[in-house]
């Protein structure tokens, strides 16, 4: 496939890996922000091909992982209502709430449907005028334009039975939290390529400057990832800290203006709680007042829910790059993809899921010895 195959060419990847080896002289800690990149790194074994000086820690860019438990519990309450068709990306179904998950709600009779796109949810609302159709609108900047479009589309179609349960988060506020922590180890970032496809990277130069860290916009194929690592390493070795673009075939500095405009029209910034991390000021988007009728939280009375998180789960620290999955005592023992304690074990972008799936059970192996 064009624009994919070339970027998996092992020979080219090794050219860049050689470049990294020739550049690096001392240890550096880089964080890839996006969970999709975490999976690509572990799946292709890039972490093991890198010189030992380069350590990769995994970032918070996993929307399923950071969606707050309260909201999962709300989704379960809404999905259990008989008049509701609850639609969601497939990843959310196994995410553990306080007592249950969407999968179990479906098994006990709830009408929970997996959709590929929010426009599919709008279609379901059109086809089922006597039912309430709710879409679980989670995600980072990449997913906000599709979700915003679904609301605008539902409005222009005059649909009264469509609403979204919003849990939108943004990357830059999380970078501030990570870099501002006294325990921070991150010295450079691989910025999430598809977040930047939408938002551009004009938000990053001030962050790079304020904290003295290079930020390199990075794609998702093996060649893209090693290229991002090479550029970040080069900056660190040369004592530079700039926002650079290693994914120029997809990302521009300005980003996608039409998409940014629609986000702005439909959503407004708000404080948002991140699962395991806590509330980050101005880190999310919620529906603007003009679109309040499409807000599932207002439409369904599910305010007072007291969530109950597993005390063993350290996903919040993993998502901030402070710990690795095998540092968790539950990893692979009490917490597996079949019986997850935290969202990070079920999401296709969760670091715990990646470590489990690709056999990075370092802590588990030590226990067996």
């Amino acid at each position, binding site marked *: 496939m064009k624009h994919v195959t070339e970027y998996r060419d092992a020979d080219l990847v090794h050219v860049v890996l050689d*470049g990294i080896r020739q550049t690096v002289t001392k240890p550096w800690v880089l964080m890839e922000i996006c*969970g999709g990149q975490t999976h690509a790194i572990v799946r292709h074994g890039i972490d093991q091909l890198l010189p030992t000086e380069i350590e990769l820690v995994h970032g918070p860019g996993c929307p399923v992982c950071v969606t707050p438990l309260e909201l999962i519990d709300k989704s379960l309450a809404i999905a259990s209502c008989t008049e509701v068709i609850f639609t969601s990306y497939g990843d959310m179904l196994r995410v553990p709430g306080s007592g249950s998950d969407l999968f179990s709600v479906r098994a006990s009779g709830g009408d929970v449907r997996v959709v590929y796109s929010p426009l599919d949810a709008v279609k379901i609302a059109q086809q089922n005028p006597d039912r309430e159709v709710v879409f679980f609108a989670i995600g980072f900047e990449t997913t906000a334009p599709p979700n915003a479009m679904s609301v605008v589309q539902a409005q222009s179609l005059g649909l009264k039975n469509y609403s979204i349960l919003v849990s939108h988060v943004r990357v830059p506020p999380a970078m501030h939290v990570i870099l501002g922590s006294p325990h921070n180890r991150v010295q450079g970032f691989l910025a999430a390529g*598809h977040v930047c496809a939408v938002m551009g990277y004009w938000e990053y130069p001030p962050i790079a400057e304020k904290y003295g860290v290079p930020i390199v916009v990075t794609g998702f194929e093996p*060649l893209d990832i090693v290229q991002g690592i090479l550029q970040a390493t080069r900056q660190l070795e040369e004592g530079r800290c700039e926002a650079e673009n290693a994914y120029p075939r997809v990302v521009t500095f300005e980003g996608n203006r039409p998409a940014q405009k629609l986000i702005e029209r439909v959503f407004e910034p708000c404080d948002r709680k991140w699962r395991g991390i806590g509330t980050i000021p101005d880190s999310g988007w919620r529906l603007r007042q003009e679109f309040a009728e499409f807000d599932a939280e207002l439409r369904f009375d599910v305010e007072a829910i007291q969530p109950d998180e597993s005390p063993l789960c350290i996903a919040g620290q993993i998502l901030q790059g402070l710990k690795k999955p095998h540092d968790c005592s539950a990893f692979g023992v009490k917490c597996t993809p079949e019986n997850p304690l935290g969202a990070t074990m079920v999401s296709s972008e969760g670091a715990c899921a990646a470590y489990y799936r690709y056999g990075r059970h370092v802590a588990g192996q030590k226990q067996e010895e």
Partner: protein
Amino acid sequence: MCLGVPGKIVETYQAGGLKMGKVDFGGVVRETCLEYVPQAEVGDYVVIHVGFAISLVSEEEAQATLEILREIMRLEEELGPEPDTR
């Protein structure tokens, strides 16, 4: 979830007031919303995320990146790998 896959636009049309298109991912063709890439035409490559094109792939940038690397590889093959002097 922020995964995006590049595909080639094979058809564009209007549906429900939106610019839509058929996008080919190496043989699998899917319907895609093209509202966010108004300049995109048949034959262009776009990155698709949850049924929406979020970016038009720049052929020039793609070629430039690959050319530099292929050039380095050709040189390495001719000269042998650069010795690691550390």
